[in-house]
């Protein structure tokens, strides 16, 4: 009467479903690379000096003048679903590497965003207040979140920051 039905079949099915969804993601997404037609790229005539990724699915595009744009990757945006609100930091907020500086809400999920480097917020993408869906339509371009002044550019050489190839490889490993 009080024994509990064991339903492992459903668990296994849902796991199988998950891995096929993840594979579909990888195939379907165009790329996690920066959009070369938008500000995070065109800020410098020749494009950013360095583009890096985190395992928490942020990208950072650092320019020659010591400033850098930060956003979330296409992979993360796809996984989150339709963004309904983007919480932005105040300009002049000082960040340590790994600090949370805002969040993206989508379908009842609040997802924190972390700074890949130490720096000071010099600009936030105000258009996300009106149009949070830019996070989905162009996460590595028009949907950039903040621009920071990097404290020490050596941070960009940290082993924790991945190249595009390393990031894509990391996605394949984990998902």
């Amino acid at each position, binding site marked *: 009467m009080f024994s509990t039905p064991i339903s492992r079949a459903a668990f296994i099915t849902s796991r199988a479903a998950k891995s096929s969804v993840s594979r579909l993601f990888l195939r379907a997404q165009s790329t996690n690379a920066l959009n070369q037609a938008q500000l995070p790229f065109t800020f410098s005539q020749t494009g950013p000096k360095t583009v890096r990724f985190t395992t928490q699915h942020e990208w950072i595009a650092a320019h020659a003048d010591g400033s850098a744009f930060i956003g979330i990757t296409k992979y993360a945006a796809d996984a989150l679903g339709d963004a309904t609100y983007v919480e932005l930091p105040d300009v002049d907020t000082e960040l340590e590497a790994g600090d949370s500086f805002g969040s993206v809400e989508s379908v009842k999920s*609040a997802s924190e965003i972390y700074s890949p480097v130490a720096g000071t917020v010099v600009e936030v993408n105000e258009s996300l207040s009106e149009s949070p869906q830019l996070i989905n339509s162009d996460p590595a371009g028009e949907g950039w979140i903040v621009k920071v002044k990097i404290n020490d550019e050596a941070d960009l050489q940290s082993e924790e920051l991945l190249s595009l190839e390393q990031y894509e490889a990391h996605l394949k490993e984990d998902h």
Partner: protein
Amino acid sequence: MLSQLYYRPVHRLWANPYFRPQRLYSAVSNKVPFELDETDDKYSEFNNFYSELFTSKDEPTGACGQHSELNSKSELDELNEELGSMYSIDVLSSAELEKKVKANGRFVFRSTSTNPYFNLALEDYVFRNTPLTENKTGNERILFYTNDKCVVIGKNQNPWKEIFMKNVGRRGYRFVRRHSGGGAVVHDLGNVNYSYLTSRESFRREFFNQQLVQWLDNEDISLNNRGDLTYKDHKISGSAFKIAKGKAYHHGTMLIDSDLAQFKGLLKPDVVPGVTWTCNSVESVRSKVTNIGREALTSIDHFCSLITDQFRALVDDPEIPMLYCDESSSLPEISEAARVLESKEWNFMSGPKFELTCEGVSLKIEKGIIVESDLPELLGSPFYEFYDNLEENDGKFKSLL
């Protein structure tokens, strides 16, 4: 021989979801849903027998009479100790709580506190301090807690647009802004909150509610198109999610025997005539709610034990412990987080900006401060102060209340 004789029925009792330590009922709901004697007939004999035999301080007689004094005493002492540890709730100490949370492994937590700020702070503590394993599985955790009367909004909502704040205060509900996303909900002692914590990699939004539907196993219970549980097409549970530091949690409400009539007049409808709001904050989706049917779930305890047993079966680990904590288990970090959750700064001074127009008066609010206004005397003051000062029968701003 003797211990075997006693062990078998004890385990069967323990498997009975209705047979739980009484202290829990009083701590969580202040209601004992049934008397010990009223449990299933099959077990009532055992229940009474064991409670009489082992919970009283009197020397047991009868059952052990034929055994030698020495043997029966030492074996009885042993049994009493074991039974004592099973039937009284050991609340974790602060040190034990910290150790458990920071170590690898799955477990189930139940908070017997009904303070919403403490419970959310505890949940956040467990979430932040759960380690990540190499393969991203194995550290799944489930929390259960019940909050006394409160309205809870999502992190990115506008409290003034969502909540009849005057009613909340007058009726003794507390206001809570949680860390996760989503819309506004009402809690009371008839509601139980569950929280399923896992790694970001293995997190799937739909997973836990799909499991719940399967585990509750009732033809009237299903998922709606927003992924929420319904009973006879009325919502019984609302969900919200949080993703941070490589981990994620799904927490949700489950209405068991809430006083739903009292919920009326706490959450605002989509439109209140007389006020225009301009804001990008997250909107609540209004739904008709109901308590889950008695034939599906009888009590909060029933829910917790059912889900715990099913979780053990799902991951094929019958040893997953059920741990209890309350405010005496708190750590400085948790108490501080609870204080922040209760603060005006968190609740009213750090949410989304908004503008409103009411009876020809416009206000613009950023970080809780009135930054633009047709009434210059309001500039620079917190919006909550302006609201607090409005009388219930205020002629001009009545529709703002």
